[in-house]
């Protein structure tokens, strides 16, 4: 792990909605302008920009090119793009800042899920030879994974409902939540199955949105904000793609990413987890060894507001927000990429 501390000094979110009337570039612009304003910087001082999005959500090849209109790319900018969640764009920008020749980076992640049908879309994200032809949709794959967890004996359907109740109750205080509610686990357990053993509240409320972050070198950060949120560690790891080739009830890549990010060096007071189901949240929490002293998903988490391709970056923002305001000194953010927790990123955030 390199020595240079990089800090989060600003962020912005476009309104997160199940179906936004705004175009994706408009959402990006709202998030980027908010982030730049919150950091108190001039956009011309940004030395590197990195975006994360996915063409397939809107079904338009080169959809990401239009988002460049929201990046302030005139005069021309040093910019890159990952076909991944914005959390990985943040990773690339963090790498770029390690070089030491620039001191500010703009990162944004965006997605509009509303134009596509997840049941039709996500099978195309799977192996085109062996899996896509099966039409394996994300709810069904999540259900298979949840069943593997239940069969392992390490969780029950009530545990899933309690995770959902916790997330939905926390989401009541989040203006960006798409769903929220005060129901307890018993009430949730009484609702019908969507894809057994999962119910609607176990699955993500997908939507449209964008999020942006300003990163700064430690020196620049201290000149910009009173309490910089330092990235003490960030790492990501991938597991094999074929669901039949791994134990779906565990997430070794999450464990490895957490170790590489330095998770073991201190207690984490709160964690924002990017699960695609309640079962995935439990699997991730277990993979990271998060116990009863860590507050999980104080924002309501990814299930209550899932603007795909921004969701992981929002986990980093929601954790950073709570370090910046003094709620926590050390926090963890997790992001995932692909189906069934194939690819996982862990970011450890700290105040001085």
């Amino acid at each position, binding site marked *: *792990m*390199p020595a240079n501390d990089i800090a989060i000094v600003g962020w912005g979110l476009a309104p997160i909605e199940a179906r936004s009337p705004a175009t994706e570039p408009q959402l990006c612009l709202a998030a980027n302008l908010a982030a730049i304003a919150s950091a108190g910087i001039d956009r011309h001082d940004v030395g590197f920009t990195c975006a994360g999005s*996915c*063409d*397939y959500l809107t*079904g*338009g*090849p*080169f*959809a*990401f*090119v239009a988002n*460049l*209109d929201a*990046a302030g*790319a*005139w*005069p*021309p*900018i*040093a*910019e*890159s*793009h*990952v*076909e*991944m969640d914005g959390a*990985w764009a943040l990773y*690339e920008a963090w*790498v*770029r800042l*390690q*070089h*030491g020749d620039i001191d500010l980076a703009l990162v944004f992640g965006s997605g509009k899920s509303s134009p596509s049908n997840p049941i039709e*879309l*996500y099978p*195309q*994200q*799977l*192996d*085109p*030879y062996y*899996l*896509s032809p099966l039409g394996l949709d994300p709810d069904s794959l999540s259900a298979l994974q949840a069943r593997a967890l239940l069969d392992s004996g390490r969780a029950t359907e009530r545990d899933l409902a309690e995770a959902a109740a916790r997330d939905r109750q926390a989401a009541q205080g989040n203006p960006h939540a798409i769903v929220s509610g005060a129901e307890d686990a018993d009430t949730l357990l009484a609702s019908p199955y969507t894809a057994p053993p999962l119910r609607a509240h176990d699955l993500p409320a997908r939507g449209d949105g964008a999020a942006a972050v300003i990163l700064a070198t430690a020196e620049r950060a201290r000149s910009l904000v009173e309490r910089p949120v330092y990235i003490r560690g960030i790492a*990501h*790891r*991938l*597991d*094999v*793609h*074929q669901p039949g*080739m791994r134990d779906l009830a565990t997430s*070794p*890549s999450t464990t*490895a990413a957490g170790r590489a990010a330095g998770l073991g060096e201190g207690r984490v007071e709160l964690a924002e987890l990017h699960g695609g189901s309640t079962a995935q949240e439990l699997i991730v929490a277990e993979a990271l060894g998060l116990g009863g002293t860590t507050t999980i998903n104080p924002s309501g988490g990814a299930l209550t507001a899932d603007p795909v391709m921004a969701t992981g970056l929002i986990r980093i923002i929601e954790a950073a927000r709570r370090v910046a305001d003094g709620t926590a000194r050390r926090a963890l953010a997790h992001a995932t*990429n*692909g*189906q069934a927790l*194939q*690819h996982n990123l862990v970011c450890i955030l700290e105040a001085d």
Partner: protein
Amino acid sequence: MAQPCAVIGVGQTKHAKARADLSMPGLVREAALRALDDAGLGFGDIDAVVIGKAPDAFEGVMQPELFLADALGAAGKPMIRVHTAGSVGGSTVVVGAHLVESGIHQRVLAVAWEKQSEGNAQWGLAGGRSGGIGAGGAFAPYIRSYIERSGAPDYIGWQVAVKDRLNALKNPYAHLQLPDISLEKVKESPMLWDPLHFLESCPSSDGACAVVLGDAGAAAASPNPPAWILATSVRSEPSTFPGRDAVRPRGGVECAHDVYRQAGITNPRQEIDVAELYVPFSWYEPMWLEGHDIAGPGEGWRMVDSGETEIGGGFPVNASGGVLSSNPIGASGMLRMAEAANQVRGLAGAHQVDGARLSLGQAYGGNAQYFSMMVFSSTLER
């Protein structure tokens, strides 16, 4: 400060209209295994994998790197998927180099690919809508504007088309092998997008390219000579707006000046021994020579006309045959970097430029709005 980084392994597939003998994993694996073999390494020696390709709609798989990871030994490692339109192959090497230069990793595998035979690139380029004009249709007005601005004679484009196809005859991996190419044949080939004839356009190819990037220790341990990376740069600008110079995009000018500054190059035409430039349509060779300030205004086409850009000329461009001879879109930019690297390694085979010590790799994409550039050297210190 950035750590030194070198290309220590290069691999590519035989490019063809359809590699029906290979699945997508088989295609990327063919290039990756050749790059690892060149570096004397196996998948187990690699710390991270960076994958680039152009739009997923070209093959109809959303984020295909998620399933290709299994074929690239990426399980248990970090993997990054880059997408910056046509420049992506170049950007992918840049992202990989940054992982080494930052001191995070010692050995990174960067892979870029496209299997155009799986889909319809014209449909993809049109954003999935009807009425698409193709890349040639988008660039033809810029080419026409260059011709008017520079006063270049019409045969300049034909000369580039012939030169690159003759170079491709020296490259066993090149898709097009046209031994009987001639100015007359190019001129007589169907007009696709005036002034571009059929033979002035790139083919649609299946292919992949891979490079292994290593730090100083990895370079010292590698069996073949390294290509030291003296400079990396990327630039992006909006697709279009009134007043934008699409013939000589400012992003391309600034990207070039950034790599020259990093590499200590003050006279690129004199100092650079060989360049691999992204020339999907013949006229882009003189356009980039001028657009990257290698040649002055109106001088680019004169370099072509005088034979200066041929192998054996003073400034050889696309000794490999270039994009005009092989165009697996997502990989085309990485092929520019890989070929430029192999030139300074002395490993370019029959299309080796004698004594090449300093080389330039360039890729561009979108509406001539995305740029990635690198400078390679046979020695860490120039």
